[in-house]
Structure formats: C-alpha cells, structure tokens
C-alpha cells in the first residue's frame, strides 16, 4: 500500500485493505475487542491492537493499519502515527528473535561497548538490521531496569545479565 492511501477517506482505505487481503484472525479480533473494553474511548486500544497484531505476526504489515483503524473507529493516519512513534512497534519484518540491548548509562559503565561489539561480530549485522537467515534482529533499547546486572539485554521476553562478551555465542544458541 502506498503512503498516498493514508490521506484518503476511510472508505477507500477499507477498499484497499480488502485488496490487500488483510483479515484479522479470530483470536486477534477477540483480543482487540477485549482491549477496547478497558477504556472509555476505543482510541486508547490503538497501541494494544498494534501489539496484538505484532504478537501473532511478528510485525505490523501495511494493510493492518487501516484494518485496525476501522476496527477501533479512528483514521488510519492516526494508527500509523502511533505505530511509527513507538519504538517497540515494528513496521517492517523482524527476525524470529529480537535482541534488545540496553545502551543506557548503567550498562555503558559496565561494558556495553564490548558486548555490542561481540554481538555485531557474532551476528554480522549492525543495530537495526536482521541477520540474512532471518533468525535475529539486533536493536538498541532504553535502560531495562536491570542496572545491578549490567551489561544487560533482552532476547524476546527473556532478560539476561550480566552478559559477558565471551558468553554471547552460547547465549544465542538457545534461540534457534
């Protein structure tokens, strides 16, 4: 879907959504509707809805944006505005496992540079990139609140720290 569509009225977006063939799974739709019920205004479920789609598909495809807008009752442009603002909403495909490396000051003081170098060397990618085999995406992240165990990182939902540069290879083996 081209970005031009974002400024068009909702009706044409829905049409383009049908053309793109985006259909929520029953579980996604149910989870989003449950989320809407937590708020006085359905708009508040926009971030949650993006997270629900991402949880099941790994990322948020273009066609999901107007579909979420329609389900929640807000313009697609507002959904895209939110999707592109929040750093943990992925608007392009990511690897099977997402590595989030804390680059804030407490980890910087305890060996972030060495850990980041070891990860880049092991994976052969820079921050923001995905390995060629689609296994890992390497991302920076704000302080993870694990400062007594720096340097620290998350792989998917798992928190690890302190992570020695020499231990990176073994750590990654647990994520095929």
């Amino acid at each position: 879907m081209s970005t031009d569509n974002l400024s068009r009225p909702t009706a044409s977006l829905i049409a383009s959504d049908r053309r793109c063939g985006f259909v929520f799974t029953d579980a996604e739709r149910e989870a989003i509707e449950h989320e809407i019920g937590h708020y006085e205004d359905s708009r508040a479920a926009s971030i949650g809805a993006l997270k629900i789609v991402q949880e099941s598909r790994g990322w948020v495809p273009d066609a999901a944006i107007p579909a979420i807008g329609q389900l929640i009752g807000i313009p697609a442009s507002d959904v895209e505005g939110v999707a592109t603002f929040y750093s943990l909403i992925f608007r392009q495909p990511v690897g099977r496992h997402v590595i989030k490396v804390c680059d804030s000051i407490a980890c910087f003081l305890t060996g972030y540079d060495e850990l980041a170098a070891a990860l880049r060397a092991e994976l052969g990618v820079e921050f923001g990139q995905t390995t060629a085999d689609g296994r890992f995406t390497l991302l920076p992240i704000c302080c993870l609140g694990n400062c007594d165990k720096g340097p620290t990182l998350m792989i998917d939902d798992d928190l690890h720290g302190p992570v020695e540069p020499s231990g990176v290879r073994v750590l990654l083996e647990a994520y095929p």
Partner: protein
Amino acid sequence: MSAGADIRTSPETHPLTWRLRGREAVTELADYEALDGYAALRLALTELSPGDVTQRVKDSNLRGRGGAGFPAGIKWSLVPMGADAPRQKYLVCNADEMEPGTFKDRLLLERLPHQLLEGMILTGYAIQASRGYIFLRGEYVLATQRLEQALTQARQAGYLGETILGSGWSFDLFVHTGAGRYICGEETALINSLEGRRANPRAKPPFPQIAGLWGKPTVVNNCETLNCIPAIVRHGAEWFKGLSQGRSPDSGTKLYGASGRVQRPGVWELPIGTTARELLEEHAGGMREGLALKAWLPGGASTDFLLPSHLDLAMDYDTIMKAGSRMGTGLMMAVDDRQSMVSVVRNLETFFARESCGWCTPCRDGLPWTVKLLSALERGEGELGDLEILAQIARQLGPGKTFCAHAPGAIEPLQSALKYFREEFERGIAAPPAAAING
C-alpha cells in the same frame, strides 16, 4: 519479628519490603493477606472517609518517589470532590520505569503486586476515582503477568469491582502496557499515550488533577509512592514521619540503589536521608578493586553530576537540590576513574536525543547537536568554541523553554560535567594546524 506482627509496636523499619524477608516474592493473595495485606484497605473502607485518607497522606508529608518530590497528599487534594465533581475520575500508576539507572519499581511490581494494588485502591478511594490504570512498560513481562494475576485475585475477593467491601464505592483497575519511548514517563505524555495517541506532552495548566485522562480529573502517581500508601493509612502519619530517624526533614523510607562498577550493585530500602556514602560504601561495598569514584549521578540520567566530596550529603530532595543536583529516583550511579567524562556524557545525550518526542524544536534539534559536538570531542576532533556552544545549548534547553522536563533534564548531566570536568572536554579539541598558530 514474626510475619504479620503489628509493625507499630515492633522495630519495623521497612514498610515497603518487610514482606519479602525470607521470601523471594509475595504474589498470591492468600499470602499477602496473611502478611497484614489489605488490612489498610479494610480499615479505610470501614472507618475512614476519603477525606480522612487524603489528610493522613498529607500529614505524612509523603513526597512523590518518581523524582520530582511533589507532596502526594497535596496532589490528591487538588482533585474536585463532592456532589458537583465529575462522576468519572481516574488514578494512574506511573510504572513506566525507564529512567536510566533506575531499577526500583521493577522490584515492587514483580515481587509485591498486591501491595501496589492495595495502594492504588486506597488512593482511588481517597480521590473517589471511578477507574485506575497501571501504565507499565511493555518490557516488564514478568510484572505484567504477576499484576494481571493479582488483579484477577483481587476482583474475586471483592477488593475491586462493584461496591468494594460493601462501602458503596466501586472501582476497577487495568494494566496498560506501553510500546517503548522514555517520554511516556512524563505525566502528560503518559496520559496522551494512555489515550492511544503519540506520547507528546501537554501544556500545563490545566493540570491533570483538573483535566487529565479523557479530560477528566486524573492523579498520576509513581509506583513506589503508591506502595507507601497502605502503611501510612494503617499506621498513621506520625509513624511514617519517624521512619527517617532524624536523618532528613522528609518522611518515610526510600528505595535507594547503586549501579556502575561497584562491588555489590543493588537496591535497598533505607530511611530517607541516608547518605550517599553509606549507600556506596556499606551497601554497595565500595568501588570494584582498583577503581576509584570520580563522579556520581544521584538518581537517574536527568540529574546533575556530583563529586566524591558530596558523598556525605543526605540523599533527600532538598539537600541534593542545594548541592546543585536532584535526588531524582534515588538510585545512584557511580562513575569510576577509568571512564572518560566526555564519553559518559555523550552516551547520556545520545539517549536523550533519541528519546526526545520531537514536539519542541529546542529539544528535537538541540539534543542531536550536543551529540554531534560531544562525539567530535570524544574523537579528539573538537573545534575551538565547541564548549561555548555546548554551554549555550544547555542554556537554551533550560526550564521553561520547552513543554516538559525532558530537555531541562537532559542538560543537567551536561552542564554539571562541563562545570566539574572542563579540562577533559578541552582535551578533545584538536590542536590547530601550525599555520594557524603562526598566524
């Protein structure tokens, strides 16, 4: 002491963490109840009016533990009350812990979920809120699971829902998990995010207590602040004031901590006003072998650096403010003598530049400029005049120049590093070519 004993008459000094003595966590409702849990809520709903609860917290002089130190009871008392007040009012727990170097709320959220719920229900009762939200950062996965479980248990037990404990007052709570961005911790940006918008801050006034979430009266309190409420309600303002043991005019205990290359980094509940030296030397065991303390941040990335000569200061709001910094979150970060201050500040400003929401021009453009200058200085490629430009940017990003406290916080470590370690920055300026020297 035995678990659950009356802490008024025992030498109990840890209202936030005493339930963890000998236990990893108290996640089940029955275990929390066996440890005096929800006793404060029963007391409040049967014997105290909402105004009594607010008065008790006001009298306790509890100051906000998120960093700003605003008195919690005064914040609550700005909420419209009575028959003419809006029917919908909201309470929001700020559990978007993302201030670099801060790892205190994680402990409370993961290990004492019911204590937060009890604090929130009591606060909701005091301001007669209709609904509450826990704004939790998305990366706190274990905390999300434990809070959701605690909410289910609390609903089943009648601590949440319709006419709680027969009081006629109804209230429910929900967990709202974020999707990243440090700016969500800013009170009004958090409200925008909760409404499903981009997390840009709002102009104040109106203050959230008057017009916050969906335009309705809203109180936003930090997670640790809310964790203090049950004990204040149960044991009274005078008891809470006594917890500082004369170390500070401030009340209560505080979750303090230390990180950086210290022997035993960690977080500890101690009387408010404990000195930074005690934190570093007794609790953290001093610096790692072969390292010496060079500078320290009292409580997060957005506080000014202090020096080893400041270690004997009491870690309370006013004392650290007088020394030219802020207590912030109270978790100190130790910078050792092997670190380059230019690199440390470059790391800090890179964080702030990335996390600026972009709403205000000075912040959006000024912070990347500091990163550019600092990176050049770090490589030894700085130019004459760079330090003056950094000082000028710091002035332009000061309080009042932007909507929120992001930019003023961002320049605190920069301006203090320039003040205390100017020669390190000067060393990053490239020597002018010989021709220039000779004119």
